[in-house]
């Protein structure tokens, strides 16, 4: 058997390994010395046709192929049946809509057996007995069997736009060849194994497989597994898939609806381009660009004075940008402020609460400000206060609340109008660990269950590391890094070893030893540190080397890169511990004098 030229494949279909097949002449269907099988068309316009196949067979829509199927979803040269030593194999020839065997898309030659169903577009063929009935003509009308149709996945947008695919077996969608059944490798927002469709009792389920950016079902982020109905739309990255279940196939056109004008886009994303804010001669934000995907938690890091709060103020329409653009859910902050405000919820750094009102009164006011009808206000207030565990304290004046309670109330107030994008400006600053954890959990729940996009500014690296899907670091008004926490740390890459020699005189020798393992770095414990070269991640070699050099040490530490390390590399200084004092320099001086005047010590208890 000769193999011909690989058919040209569209750029989007790299998952297919089209083998090289020579075109087969129509009269070579029957071949005496090869196995035989019977192929019956059981679904589609060509139903009730049965064929006996004894040789290589090309199936397609083009009249020149061996088996012509006049189905608009079948490609001109769609697939071929290849005889093997025993039996046959089906191979896709680079078709638009793919070739499926028992619902699973085939990417290479796939052996078929009696009972297997091969789907090409809307046409389903069943493999029958290996040996045809002796009296069976080449073409025989058979009874159309009542075979249950398969759930269909219709790709409305994205890399496979226009494709229709049956899902008779589990189908994994992902970005990586070999890890997924359907490869969408042009979309970086898709994880290597992103989500899986699975048939279940005549229907279909979808499961997110721990993707970074999540799977949306009808706009809501999926948690765990969900059953799908006809018409449900699943979004994976930029790809939108509509589900059609058997029996009520809506036959929606396999094209995406006409794109809506940009201003009317309602995805919960944040797009910032060249954003600048100047206060007189001072440029607080210096041309930043960032993109926050829908349903993402974006951590915005930077020390005090970096421009975080200024950026948040601009994105939430509290400050107009000097130049640049920012779109929140498609609305321009400079031109569509009112629309932006109706879309966002904001909990600012200073909890904007009135000490003389209680939580109910705050809720009443906030719901009124957002135009919520009077009849619904109480219910919304009750639900939200319960959600943030403030129902018991709701009747007390806010002036008597703890910091954590104030923050929770602030969060509840930010949610009264069901925003799609939530801005949290250092929400846990000053909170105790328990309150902090509670807030994190609530934010995670909002993203998980309500598909909210969250823009979170924080000085706490741990918070960003735990919560954020992606992190952007700003310093002196400029973006210095942006990626997932893992990727940022991986970029820095290497762990750092730190040793503290016993003798001061051994520092130089210790430095020399460590330079053999990596480049010297700054030490935080008054010793000597080195960032280990790739491939070196074991302390044993380092300790052995120190021992051989007769260097005694009091402390040896190995630590993995942190976001602070990222910041250090990107800006030359540490993020943590860089917070400025709250008091002005002058007031700090006064305090210092007062403390020094009578000796540093505890406050005088005899006042």
């Amino acid at each position, binding site marked *: 058997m000769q193999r011909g030229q690989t058919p040209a494949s569209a750029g989007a279909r790299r998952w297919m390994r089209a083998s090289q097949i020579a075109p087969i002449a129509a009269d070579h269907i029957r071949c005496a010395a090869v196995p035989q099988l019977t192929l019956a068309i059981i679904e589609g316009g060509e139903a009730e046709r049965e064929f006996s196949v004894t040789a290589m067979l090309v199936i397609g829509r083009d009249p020149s192929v061996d088996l012509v199927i006049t189905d608009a979803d079948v490609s001109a040269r769609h697939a071929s049946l290849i005889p093997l030593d025993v039996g046959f194999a089906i191979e896709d020839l680079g078709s638009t809509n793919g070739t499926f065997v028992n619902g699973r898309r085939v990417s290479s030659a796939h052996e078929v057996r009696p009972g297997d169903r091969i789907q090409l577009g809307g046409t389903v063929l069943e493999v029958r007995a290996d040996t045809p009935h002796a009296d069976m003509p080449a073409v025989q009308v058979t009874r159309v069997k009542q075979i249950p149709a398969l759930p269909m996945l219709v790709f409305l947008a994205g890399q496979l736009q226009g494709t229709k695919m049956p899902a008779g077996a589990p189908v994994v969608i992902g970005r990586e060849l070999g890890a997924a059944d359907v490869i969408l490798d042009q979309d970086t927002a898709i994880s290597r194994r992103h989500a899986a469709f699975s048939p279940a009792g005549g229907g279909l389920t979808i499961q997110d497989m721990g993707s970074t950016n999540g799977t949306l079902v009808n706009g809501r982020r999926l948690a765990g597994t969900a059953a799908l109905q006809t018409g449900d739309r699943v979004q994976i990255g930029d790809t939108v898939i509509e589900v059609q279940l058997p029996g009520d196939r809506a036959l929606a056109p396999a094209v995406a609806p006409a794109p809506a004008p940009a201003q009317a886009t309602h995805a919960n994303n944040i797009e910032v381009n060249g954003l600048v804010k*100047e206060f007189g001669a001072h440029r607080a934000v210096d041309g930043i660009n960032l993109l926050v995907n829908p349903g993402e938690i974006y951590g915005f890091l930077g020390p005090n004075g970096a421009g975080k709060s200024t950026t948040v103020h601009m994105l939430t329409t509290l400050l107009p940008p000097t130049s640049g653009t920012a779109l929140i859910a498609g609305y321009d902050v400079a031109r569509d402020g009112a629309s932006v405000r109706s879309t966002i919820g904001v909990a600012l750094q200073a909890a904007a609460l009135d000490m003389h009102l209680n939580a109910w009164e705050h809720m009443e006011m906030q719901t009124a*400000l957002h135009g919520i009808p009077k009849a619904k206000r109480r219910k919304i207030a009750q639900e939200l206060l319960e959600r943030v565990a403030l129902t018991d304290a709701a009747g007390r004046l806010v002036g008597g609340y703890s910091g954590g309670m104030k923050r929770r109330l602030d969060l509840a107030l930010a949610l009264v109008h069901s925003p799609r994008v939530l801005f949290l400006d250092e929400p846990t600053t000053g909170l105790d660990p328990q309150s902090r954890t509670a807030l994190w959990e609530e934010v995670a729940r909002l993203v998980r269950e309500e598909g909210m996009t969250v823009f979170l500014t924080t000085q706490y690296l741990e918070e960003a590391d735990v919560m954020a899907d992606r992190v952007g670091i700003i310093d002196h008004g400029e973006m210095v890094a942006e990626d997932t926490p893992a990727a940022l740390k991986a970029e820095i890459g290497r762990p750092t070893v730190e040793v503290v020699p016993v003798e001061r005189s051994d520092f130089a020798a210790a430095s020399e030893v460590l330079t053999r393992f990596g480049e010297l770095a700054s030490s935080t414990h008054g010793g000597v540190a080195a960032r280990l070269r790739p491939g070196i991640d074991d302390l044993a070699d380092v300790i052995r080397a120190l021992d051989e050099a007769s260097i005694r040490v009091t402390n040896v530490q190995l630590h993995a890169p942190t976001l602070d390390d990222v910041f250090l590399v990107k800006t030359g200084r540490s993020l943590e511990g860089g917070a400025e004092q709250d008091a002005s320099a002058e007031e700090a001086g006064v305090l210092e004098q007062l403390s020094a005047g009578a000796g540093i010590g505890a406050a005088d208890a005899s006042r």
Partner: protein
Amino acid sequence: MRSLSVARGVAYQCTRKLIRLPPKLLPSLLLPLFMFAAFGGALGALGSTKGFGYYSYTAFVFVFVLYMASMFAAVFTTFDIAADFEGGFGNRMMLAAPRRLAIVGGYVIVALWRGLANIAVVFAVALATGMSVQGNAIDVIGLVALALLLNTVATLYGAGIALRFQSTASGVLILIPTFMLFFLSPIFIPRHQLSGWLRDAADVNPLTPVLEAGRGFLADDPVKVVLAFAALLGLALLFSVWVVRGMRKAERGPGSPARGPRARGPRARGPRARAQQGAEAKA
């Protein structure tokens, strides 16, 4: 409708606080009452001087006190605007309101009901001290209408200051000019008895015809009514523009130029560029 909702929300917040802290209502009421007692008590003899020409010195002073009570209700309401914005609460309102001027509307509502309350108290005190009212119900309504218009004018002026400065320290910039407006008008002797620069100032002071119209209502002898209402409506219009510009300033944030092209210029080398340069130099 949404703007009305915003105004109501703001008014609700202010009102709840005042109900919870009734002493906050006192300063705006006590000072006018002190003035009433002081001028009425200390200067009562002036009512008997030749050329005074009004039916009662107490009633003469009462009109100015009534106006002061109404205006101070507004002034102290605008102190709350400054406090709300200084404390960050203003951000909550700015974030929620599609049209931010509706926020000012809420404070106008509160100032008006506080003004009405002050007017009622001052009237009650004056009547209790034996002041007589020669005008009829229509005259009294006219007097109260002038007082409430003054209240709105004061709210708009004070709101403009509060939005610009967003600081409680700016309260003096609201209170002092209000005082000055009164003391540059014929508050304890008629205009024709003033002399020198004070007479000149009173002649051009828009409060003067308002005072004279109010005294006319009280004496059942309306004078300069049209001029008084026109002056107040004109002031209301002027300070409406003032408050709109104040809100724009508040939206622009601190340190922004009031007008003119956005600052452009060569982009300074940022720290990242410097850090990269440093790293390159080290490599």
